[in-house]
């Protein structure tokens, strides 16, 4: 038996940088729980709904981050899984099935199944080919939704009411916010466990050097497929919430621009950082909101702002933390 050495300092590496600290999570949870109450006090109910929207897209971006940031699978087709979740909820509602206990798990299952099938084919390719084939699959879903009458064509599907949760009226925007917070919170706890588990470490290792991971005996393809499936399932969960927020779904949710937006959010926030998806979604949506109330040409202004962010923090906003810490260390040793 080799002696155990207890090191003074373990350097932060890509393996540990992607893992969250529990105190940050608790602080964020408290802030998010207090936020709508503050907005109600201020009489700004609109911002409660905006908060729900940020949380839902934060979940969708974090789902993509699992595949893209942790697994190194650059998917340009995640709108398909978001849309699969949203369409499942809307289609079930059209059949008179409004119970959240049925609709939400069904949305996750359908989106997960779609991701499993797409992944089983796409993950046999690498690099640009993977990007293109995921995009192609997403377009396939898009045209399916547009052309099939059961999915409402260009108009999509409307909800007459939000999903039913016994004892809670989700029509109330405050109640809906807490429903979203609770659901997304559960998903983040799951993600947290996932990325700090044996599976999570294997996934990070695959991103760093796939060939070596295979050589030491991991079933790389199956691990990536599992990550892609879970990522798709979580995106489907976000889609189910999104359909409830918007009271329906249009093919726009499935469009490639939506996949691109999710990717922009992950890149801004920090791909491969636990809070990357959340940070990116919050920055993007809040900037969009702030700029669009002031000018008609908000797209241009937003584009410039995003460009500045990416130039200041090419590895995402979450990577700034390490940079600040390492600069502080350098100064203190000088």
């Amino acid at each position, binding site marked *: 038996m080799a002696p*155990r050495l207890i090191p003074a300092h373990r350097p932060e590496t*890509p*393996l540990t940088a992607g893992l969250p600290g529990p105190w940050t999570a608790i602080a964020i949870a408290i802030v998010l729980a207090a936020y709508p109450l503050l907005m109600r006090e201020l009489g700004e109910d609109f911002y409660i709904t905006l908060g729900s929207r940020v949380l839902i897209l934060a979940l969708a971006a974090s789902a993509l981050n699992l595949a893209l940031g942790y697994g190194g699978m650059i998917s340009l087709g995640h709108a398909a899984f978001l849309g699969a979740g949203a369409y499942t909820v809307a289609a079930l509602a059209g059949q008179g099935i409004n119970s959240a206990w049925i609709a939400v798990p069904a949305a996750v299952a359908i989106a997960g199944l779609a991701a499993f099938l797409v992944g089983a084919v796409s993950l046999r390719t690498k690099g640009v080919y993977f990007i293109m084939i995921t995009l192609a699959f997403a377009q396939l879903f898009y045209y399916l939704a547009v052309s099939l009458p059961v999915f409402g064509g260009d108009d999509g599907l409307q909800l007459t009411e939000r999903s039913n949760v016994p004892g809670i009226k989700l029509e109330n925007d405050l109640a809906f916010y807490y429903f979203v917070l609770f659901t997304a919170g559960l998903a983040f706890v799951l993600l947290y466990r996932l990325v700090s588990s044996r599976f999570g*470490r294997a996934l990070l290792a695959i991103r760093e*050097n796939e060939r070596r*991971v295979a*050589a030491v005996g991991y079933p790389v393809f199956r691990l990536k497929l599992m990550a892609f499936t879970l990522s798709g399932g979580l995106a489907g969960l976000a889609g189910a919430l999104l359909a409830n927020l918007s009271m329906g779904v249009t093919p726009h949710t499935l469009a490639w621009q939506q996949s691109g937006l999710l990717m922009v959010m992950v890149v801004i926030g920090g791909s491969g950082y636990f809070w990357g998806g959340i940070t990116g979604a919050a920055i993007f949506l809040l900037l969009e909101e702030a700029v669009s109330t002031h000018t008609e040409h908000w797209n241009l202004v937003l584009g410039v702002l995003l460009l500045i962010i990416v130039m200041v923090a090419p590895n995402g906003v979450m990577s700034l933390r390490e940079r600040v810490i390492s600069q502080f260390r350098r100064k203190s040793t000088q």
Partner: protein
Amino acid sequence: MNPILHVEHLVKRFGGLVATNDCSLEVASGEIHALIGPNGAGKTTLLAQLSGELASNSGRILFQGRDVTRLPVDKRVAAGMTRSYQITTLFSKLTVRENLAVAVQARTGRFFDVFGTVAGDSDIEDGAAQAAESVGLLDMMERVVGTLSHGKQRALELGMALACKPKLLLLDEPMAGTDPEESQRMGDLIHALRGEHTVILVEHDMDAVFRLADRVSVLVAGHVIATGAPEAIRANPEVVKAYLGDEEDEKEAA
């Protein structure tokens, strides 16, 4: 002789090129079996076929009597065959400890365990420390691999394969790019494996090969033309003509 590995009439074609041509080989349990041959003889291709990275067109690979010809890499590692790389293939942004931990974790299975946390898993930590000790890297556990010297990276390359606790190690030019001192140290590490592991050693450094190997096989154009003790191989006229002779010619030409 108690063979651990039987290679029977193995073939690998890349389009019209036959890289491995009716290759047959027997490796005895516990020996260091060197595989030598001129550039382009197909040594690396054969190694990739043995490890499972390349599928074979025909022929059989029997490991401990079991046909592994169609098994994927992970199943072969689980059975006890692990390779190392000629071009260092490490997680260069991770520490030595993290590199070895990834390899040890693979050995302990539970690939789809999404709940148990890996932080502070003592089985993994101990396994990593053990592997580090066996290649002399115990005092560098927290160093980021990209900052290590080439020689240390080569040692870790061997450590990664050892961390899988293989019965059969497939070493692809472990001395590649090392200076004489590092090469000597790597030789000592490989020498220490004798008995505990069976080793197939692909190596260009002839001094190391003749010093370390129990037996040597000579690969020419994807075919084993001779197998025997180092002295016998050195004296074999066919080998001298096909391989060592070539090297002499090259030296003269240069």
